[in-house]
């Protein structure tokens, strides 16, 4: 990232949030939110992955250390994974990673895992709104 980008986030300026959305549920949910013309903040950059379990914890760490203000992983509801059990792994990793990040003094709001199904466009918009607001309330991740 360019250094000037690092000065964003917090204190009223616009944070950058990275969203990993699973191809089968969350991405379709995001699509539905868009097609339904739901209003949501534009701080999120969505990366489509084939499954939420594709998101290595290394991605989250690298993103946060390099100055992104938040990382959000969106997957299918437990039990609904297109690959049967991918999101169960995501859940374990998320649980572990969250404790670790908190121990290192990174606000837990900066890393979130949520379940969004393909029919939950409204929920997607709501999560994006909520997460953006929470992260806006924090100061910049790496000033």
């Amino acid at each position, binding site marked *: 990232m360019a250094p000037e980008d690092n000065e964003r986030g917090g204190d009223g300026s616009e944070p950058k949030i990275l969203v990993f959305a699973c191809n089968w549920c969350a991405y379709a949910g995001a699509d539905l939110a868009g097609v339904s013309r739901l209003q949501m903040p534009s701080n999120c950059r969505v990366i489509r992955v084939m499954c939420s379990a594709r998101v290595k914890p290394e991605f989250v*760490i*690298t993103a946060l*250390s*390099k100055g992104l203000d938040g990382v959000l992983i969106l997957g299918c509801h437990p039990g609904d994974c297109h690959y049967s059990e991918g999101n169960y792994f995501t859940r374990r990793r*998320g*649980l*572990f990673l969250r*404790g670790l990040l*908190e121990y290192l*003094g990174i606000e837990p709001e900066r890393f979130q895992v949520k379940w969004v199904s393909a029919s939950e466009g409204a929920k997607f918009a709501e999560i994006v709104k909520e997460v953006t607001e929470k992260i806006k309330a924090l100061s910049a991740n790496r000033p």
Partner: protein
Amino acid sequence: MQDKLRDIVNKLQAEGAIEYFIGYCPGAGPHLVVPCFVAGEDEVERLVWNPLCLHNLSKYILQARDLEGKVGLLVKGCDARAIVELLKQRQIEREKMVVIGVPCQGQVDPAKLEKVLGVPMEKVKGVEDAGDAFLVSVGEEKQKVPKEQLLREKCFYCKHPTSFEYDSTLGEMIPLSMDADRGEFALVEELEQLPLEERRAFWQKQFARCIRCNACREVCYACYCTECIFDKKTPRWLDKPPLLPENEIYHLIRVLHLAGRCIDCGECERVCPMRIPLSRLYKKVQKDVAELFNYEAGMELDEVLPLVTFELDDQDSFM
């Protein structure tokens, strides 16, 4: 015990049961002990065992993969957990090694020794175990120092030296029983109770000091990948300069990779030239893995590593 060790190794070699033996030898000075590989009777004479044998030798057993014969190895009870993990992670076969367990009654922390006696480590001629104290030879005289003043941190919480089935032992493998005045995870809990900003400041300060010499990776028993993620060119995970964001990524990825595999041998902290308190990081991982997944590394051969499996009823309160 040293003589018994030499006898056993000589016997193994005479029988042709092993190609070489991995143990401890005197290093460049009397206070130094280094890992060594011995073959032949004259070399076996160099083998030593004393409270300065700090290294985790399990790391070197992986060399036996390329051999036709077997390798003999001396392990302390705590380091045997590394072998359990290596077997579990299918890095080596049990048939490839002859493991000799050494009943360890605590190891000396050189930094504590220097502090307590007020002499540099170079002046120390040797350390002996004398029940509930260490006999430290400085110059001509021997000083008796109570164990609790000199022990390595991990020795206060000595447990499970019998998690592994040894081929033979040099005595009964019993854990050292020490009354620690604080719990095993006291240092972690102390940090956990600090406010978030202070914790962040603490770790940023530590990581900023890292020179990325990779010593912690090289010494770690669990770092056996032929190509480490940090050395990969495509994709490149890590930039070369040891700057704070990169250092942070380095240490966090290492912690993640060791989740459920760290056996608390404490080698990373021991070899760190910058004295970064890495065990406070890895202890946290052990604590979390125990609390969240009810798992302890290096105990059972047929367990599955906690982050490559799942339970249907894992918590997801924050999701």
